[in-house]
């Protein structure tokens, strides 16, 4: 039964295209970066590789949101919080790896703590010098927060826009909290100035390419995993809940637990995306918690088309490419463009670009048959 779902996924045409593109990227990018000489026009600069890695992290985050929004109808405006929490867990590990190479040369304490005159490491920093511990935290912290929040919210049947506003308030509260120096997460400067990960220099091309490959692989694996969830019985119930929550409940399904576990899984994926993001961009600060980030993430999914998973990836990459382009070339225009994107997509493209593509394909098929 399980095997059949996986083979179903691999036989699906869109999945094949998507996974094929990921494999292609995973092969071509390292070759173009490492093997092609620097002065060739085919050479891919490390900067571009890092940028692409960043986009893929966002794509991973978009998949996490699409899982809850597209399949369960839960519009979370706070998914950026889970992303940032995963990022902070990774950032804390990277901070501990700096050791005595910081500005103050203190092997025991990160720079910002020395600056704040702290005498010893706060209890919640203990263990983060171990990679495995940090990796557990990357999944555990966002998952736990999602569990507590979801347990409270779904059990009392907070749904729709109320839930959206609550999630927004959640990330806003975390934003304010992480801005405080007393929290012990570096205040508004966040965590930065990382040196190496598992002993590999973060600045070297090889490490960057490896991180890029890990991100690509994680994205592919997550895609298959999420597709598996949505095609399993669990996923069928989730879709039923999205379409008619009360009916699903009356039939006898425990709607709350279904939604809760999906929410937790999604939060963990968002956390992993954050953890992959931080070593590539080299900084994590409270700005990642800002409600604007979370809502921008919603528009990626909306642009790509929700409920397809690969649509979320396409949307994330397209919108972020647009953002990089506009903020560089025409910074004034970017917010206009983003705002217009919100309005136009909701008014004219309720199913996103992927919906447009499906529509086109159907019409084409009809014409062929005629």
């Amino acid at each position, binding site marked *: 039964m399980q095997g059949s779902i996986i083979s179903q996924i691999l036989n699906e045409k869109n999945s094949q295209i998507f996974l094929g593109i990921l494999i292609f990227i995973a092969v071509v990018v390292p070759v173009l970066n490492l093997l092609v000489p620097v002065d060739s026009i085919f050479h891919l600069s490390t900067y571009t590789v890092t940028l692409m890695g960043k986009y893929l992290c966002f794509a991973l985050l978009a998949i996490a949101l699409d899982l809850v929004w597209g399949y369960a109808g839960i519009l979370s405006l706070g998914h950026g919080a889970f992303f940032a929490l995963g990022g902070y867990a990774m950032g804390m590990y990277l901070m501990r790896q700096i050791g005595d190479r910081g500005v103050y040369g203190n092997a025991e304490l990160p720079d910002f703590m020395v600056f704040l005159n702290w005498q010893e490491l706060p209890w919640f920093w203990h263990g983060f010098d171990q990679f495995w511990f940090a990796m557990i935290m990357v999944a555990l912290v966002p998952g736990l927060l999602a569990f507590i929040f979801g347990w409270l919210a779904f059990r009392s049947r907070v749904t729709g826009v109320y839930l959206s506003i609550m999630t927004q308030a959640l990330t806003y*509260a975390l934003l304010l909290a992480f801005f405080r120096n007393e929290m012990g997460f570096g205040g508004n400067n966040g965590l930065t100035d990382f040196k190496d990960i598992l002993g590999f220099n973060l600045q070297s091309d090889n490490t960057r390419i490896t991180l890029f490959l890990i991100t690509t692989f994680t994205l592919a694996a997550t895609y298959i995993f999420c597709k598996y969830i949505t095609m399993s019985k669990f996923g069928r119930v989730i879709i039923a809940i999205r379409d008619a929550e009360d009916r699903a409940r009356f039939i006898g399904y425990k709607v709350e637990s279904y939604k809760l576990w999906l929410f937790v899984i999604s939060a963990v994926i968002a956390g992993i995306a954050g953890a992959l993001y931080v070593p590539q961009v080299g900084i994590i600060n409270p700005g990642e918690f800002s409600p604007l980030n979370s809502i921008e993430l919603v528009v990626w999914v*909306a642009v790509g088309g929700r409920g397809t998973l690969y649509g979320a990836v396409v949307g994330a990459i397209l919108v972020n490419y647009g953002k990089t382009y506009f903020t560089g070339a025409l910074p004034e225009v970017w917010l206009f463009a983003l705002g*217009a994107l919100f309005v136009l997509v909701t008014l004219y493209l309720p199913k996103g670009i992927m919906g447009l593509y499906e529509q086109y394909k159907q019409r084409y098929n009809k014409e062929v048959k005629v």
Partner: protein
Amino acid sequence: MKHYSPLTIHKNLFTVLFALILTISSTLAVAEESSFVTASSMLSAKKFKEKEMAIEAVMQTAKTKENSVRVLNLLQSLLAGKLYYKKSDKKIVVVNKVDGDYLITDVISNQNLGVISKRKLKKITVNNKLRRKLRSYISQLSLENDDPAVRLSAIQNMMGAATAEHVKDIRKKLLVEKNSSVKGAMQTLIALIEIDSENKEVRVGALNNLSGSLEPKALNKIISLLEKDDDGNYLEKDKDILYAAIKAKRKIDERRDTYAFFEKIFFGLSLGSVLLLAAIGLAITFGVMGVINMAHGELIMIGAYTTYVVQLLMPNYIEYSLLVAVPAAFIVSGLFGIAIERGVIRFLYGRPLETLLATFGISLILQQLVRSIFSPLNRSVETPMWMSGALEFNPIFSITYNRLTIIIFSLFVFALLMLILKKTSLGLKVRAVSQNRPMARAMGIRSEWVDAMTFGLGSGIAGVAGVALSQLTNVGPNLGQTYIIDSFLVVVFGGVGNLWGTLVAAMSLGVFNKFLEPVAGAVLAKILILIFIILFIQKKPRGLFPQKGRSAEN
């Protein structure tokens, strides 16, 4: 022989006497005049010792009313460092610097002598000892002023500077003083001096007088009296005085706590009224129409910028600018609201999540629009005179007029809105459409028109909130974002579709926040309130005052 009648003699005598008196008094006046002139001219001396003597001499001349004004003026200028003398004739002048020019006035005739080069003048400097002396003299002279406010500030200036010599004078003044607050300040001042007296009885009496005083100096004095040495024993040995001091301090603390409590309530209501203004428009669009308008904050911002533009257009009438700005902001934001409703929202009814996203897009566009037109920097909006200043109850409790105005204004807007919804034809239609759209349409109500009008009303009120906010915070492109989450929480907390709930929620959140702030700090207080509301919504998903009956469905 000429016969002098007694009467004539008498008359002559009288004339002579009268002439004599006249001469004496005029010579007296002349003497005083000349003494003021000589005394003031002595101020050009180099040594501080001589200047001190000159100041004392000047002070001696302040016997008549007119002269005391002149002396006061001179002493104040000297203290403010505005007193100079001309190098040529040693004439003492007051200097007013206007645009870098030295405008001089004669101290004796109070005549304007025009502009003079800085090099021809020499400043009369004072040292700390002289300053202390000047302050005490100025206070003494001010005590004779007709204005009670001047007398009060004079007494307050004397606190800490006055010594036992002044007590007699002040006691005399106390007998003739009519104003009760000046009287109270005088008594405090006397007690503050007498607390250091040699006599134990006097000290205890002074302490009893200071008991419950709100004057900061009184509290400091008593705290210093209650100081302990390293072993934890009181420095003061006398039991009775210690007892009186402890009692006085307890009374002072009690009163201070009471007023601190009032102050927190006031600040809380002030914050609450801001929240109310921001949320009340939302309560209409979200509560009555069920439309999530994420651009609500930007409509507030547009209202604030309208105030800014109105003030630019009428720079000479800042006093009245707000009266113009309120309707202007209502119209501008209302029109923006109607445009948003007609252009976007009406296609999205029944799809709340999509509405949320689309209006969020609009909010981004409006923010960038303002940034492009007015620059991303904050703009300053002026506060009219009648809104600045504060109503002072006592040294530690005062109410600023702008906050007071906004509290009253927010309640006024609330009442007006209630009236519109309950008593007008538009209100009736709004309620009808929000309760049952198909039925309302069947009764002949143009529901589309009602939608546009309702949205316009809610947006217009957001604009009005912007006018109020422009008086409290900076006007910038991010103004709206600061309030959007808070106002949503207020609406959700109060119960969607319930305006009274919004009022109670806004005020209680405001007060709650201000009571939490001193304990937890401003940021943590905000976080705690967010967490509180998140938890509260879990418990009562429909807010404090949920709607009952049919409209509560869906």
